[in-house]
């Protein structure tokens, strides 16, 4: 099992890249108590039979690893959502694309910690199969909030291809600055009880 919510996210967005998508859109929206996430891709999609089987941990299409009998990304996620009163939904059409959406109740005792969102976005944006990725990240409290949008093509136009350590270090710095602004808003405006999601494992992760 994964430790943090952002690990689940990283794991399943890779599915979209591997499905040959030319565009992947990610919504990652937090309120004080909930996280809603949606991943929409225009990859190859899945037929009804495969959709039925992907939540079975012992099912894999066997394309990446010929003899392997497990596929754990989606089963892990749906199980983690179930464990904390969250939701999980999968919609897909062959040749059109797939949409996965899930939510977590962040104040639930069994909700995983959030993890390091900036480093997850970094890993996704620099994934070798990622053609175009648009990330809408927000924190809304009802009284206001913070949000930012990341677009791979726009960032690559500024930095050049995401290949070498120097370029990725700049990207890392940029992403951290976006996320820090959001964290600052959280600390100024939300109650202490919601902060637990960024504490213990976050330090381990850094």
């Amino acid at each position, binding site marked *: 099992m994964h430790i943090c919510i952002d690990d689940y996210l990283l794991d399943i967005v890779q599915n979209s890249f591997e499905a040959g998508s030319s565009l992947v859109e990610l919504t990652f929206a937090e309120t004080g108590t909930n996280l809603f996430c949606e991943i929409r891709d225009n990859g190859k999609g899945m037929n009804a039979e495969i959709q039925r089987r992907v939540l079975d941990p012992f099912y894999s299409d066997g394309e990446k690893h010929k003899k392997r009998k497990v596929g754990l990304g989606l089963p892990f996620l749906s199980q983690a959502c179930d464990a904390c009163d969250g939701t999980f939904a999968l919609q897909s059409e062959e040749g059109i694309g797939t949409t996965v959406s899930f939510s977590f109740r962040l104040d639930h005792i069994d909700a995983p910690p959030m993890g*390091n969102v900036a*480093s997850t976005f970094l890993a996704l944006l620099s994934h070798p199969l990622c053609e175009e990725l648009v990330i809408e990240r927000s924190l809304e409290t009802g009284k206001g909030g913070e949000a930012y949008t990341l677009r791979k093509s726009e*960032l690559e136009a500024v930095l050049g291809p995401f290949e070498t*350590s120097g370029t990725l270090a*700049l990207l890392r710095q940029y992403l951290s600055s*976006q996320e820090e602004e959001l964290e600052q808003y959280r600390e100024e405006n939300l109650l202490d009880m919601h902060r637990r999601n960024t504490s213990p494992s976050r330090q381990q*992760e850094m």
Partner: protein
Amino acid sequence: MAKMTLEELRKLREKKQNEIQKRDIEGKDARIIVGMGTCGIAAGAKPVLDTFLEVLDEKKIDNVSVTQTGCMGLCYVEPTIEVIVPGMPDVIYGKVDVETARKIVEQHIIGKQLVTDHMFDRPAADIIKKDGGK
């Protein structure tokens, strides 16, 4: 750090590019490939990737290629990474945590010596036994 704009990012890049010219030799053509499959992620590959970038930036090494791949088939020793440095054997390191990642940059990428206690699969077993490949 205040929220950076794309324009500020562009300026920062230009500034950095002027500095890069002088030290283009270190890390040239070196590659780090991080296994980022489900098994790698569960074992902590993401903070490892992050640490590589952090340490390389700290050491001002700008031209190491850092990429991701899926599972390399060594799920039992995740996180696994492959390091390719010209003039040295290609190595797959396993059980790489953030401390080991730092050590790999300092010892393997910069010092040109293998980190023997984390080597798996490659190169051949008889080489792994030798001290740092010296």
